[in-house]
């Protein structure tokens, strides 16, 4: 049990963070509005979770200009993909225990 909980990542406890990681794990990149619409969350809520994941080094942010409008896009880092997949494994093991 201890081993499982060790892989059970605190950073992904929130549904929103789990959602962000899920989306970025299967997409090369996604911009802020795309994430917001997919996850159906408010701007402020999404921004704070994105910041937390970025500070943890799990995602990276890239600011660009598209038609002179600022566009912020996010993608998963190698560290992020690694800890997300071990978190998934931990989830699966928790389920299989029952």
């Amino acid at each position, binding site marked *: 049990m201890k081993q499982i909980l060790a892989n059970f990542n605190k950073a992904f406890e929130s549904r929103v963070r*789990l959602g962000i990681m*899920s*989306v970025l*794990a*299967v*997409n090369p990149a996604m911009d802020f509005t*795309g994430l917001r619409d*997919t996850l159906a969350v408010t701007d402020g809520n999404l921004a704070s979770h994105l910041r937390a994941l970025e500070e943890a080094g799990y995602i990276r942010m890239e600011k660009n200009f598209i038609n002179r409008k600022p566009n912020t896009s996010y993608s998963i880092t190698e560290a992020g993909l690694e800890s997300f997949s071990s978190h998934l494994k931990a989830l699966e093991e*928790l389920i299989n225990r*029952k």
Partner: protein
Amino acid sequence: MMNQSDQPLEDIRVIRKLMEESSRFLSLSGLSGILAGIAGLAGAYAAHLVIKGNTPYTDWYLRPLGGGEAAAGTVLELFAAMAVVLVVAFMGAVILSSRKAKKSGLHAWTPVTKRMLVSLLIPLAAGGLFILFTVKTVPASVTAASSLIFYGVAMMNAGKFTFGEIHWLGVLEVVTGLACLLLPQYTIIIWAIGFGVIHIFYGLFMHLRYRG
């Protein structure tokens, strides 16, 4: 309040749903496949009438559509008919798919929709130009075959971003196009099968399988 012990299961369910929804365009309507098929059949019939009306040759399929006398008119009429088919099929797909998205509470216009359209339009545009540049020099059967083959490749390409069945629809269209090269005397029938019959069966299958 969620039962604590159900949390991992619910987490996995949410993860799976988000991965699927964000990487695939799931609102593609099966009904629009049926509509495209009907438009395709009508287009094939229109092509049959145009060709019968304009060419005295029984082996017209071995001659370039854009060659010989009165050919400019034939090509123009055929292109006009195909443009109508394309617009009807495309508009039908847009309207029926946004309706399906609304019904299932999904956004129709997402980053993955954009990616699917780009991956669809690049082979399609290449095919359109290929046909435009070769219509005067290659046999009519080759022109028809290339429309099927390029369309099939476009579907295979777009299939990465929507239902996996679209990939197999593309494979089928490519095979139909190759058959058209081998059996040029049946060009119109094969074209009608490729753009008409296959779409109708595919649309029915998708409609029954995914409801909508």
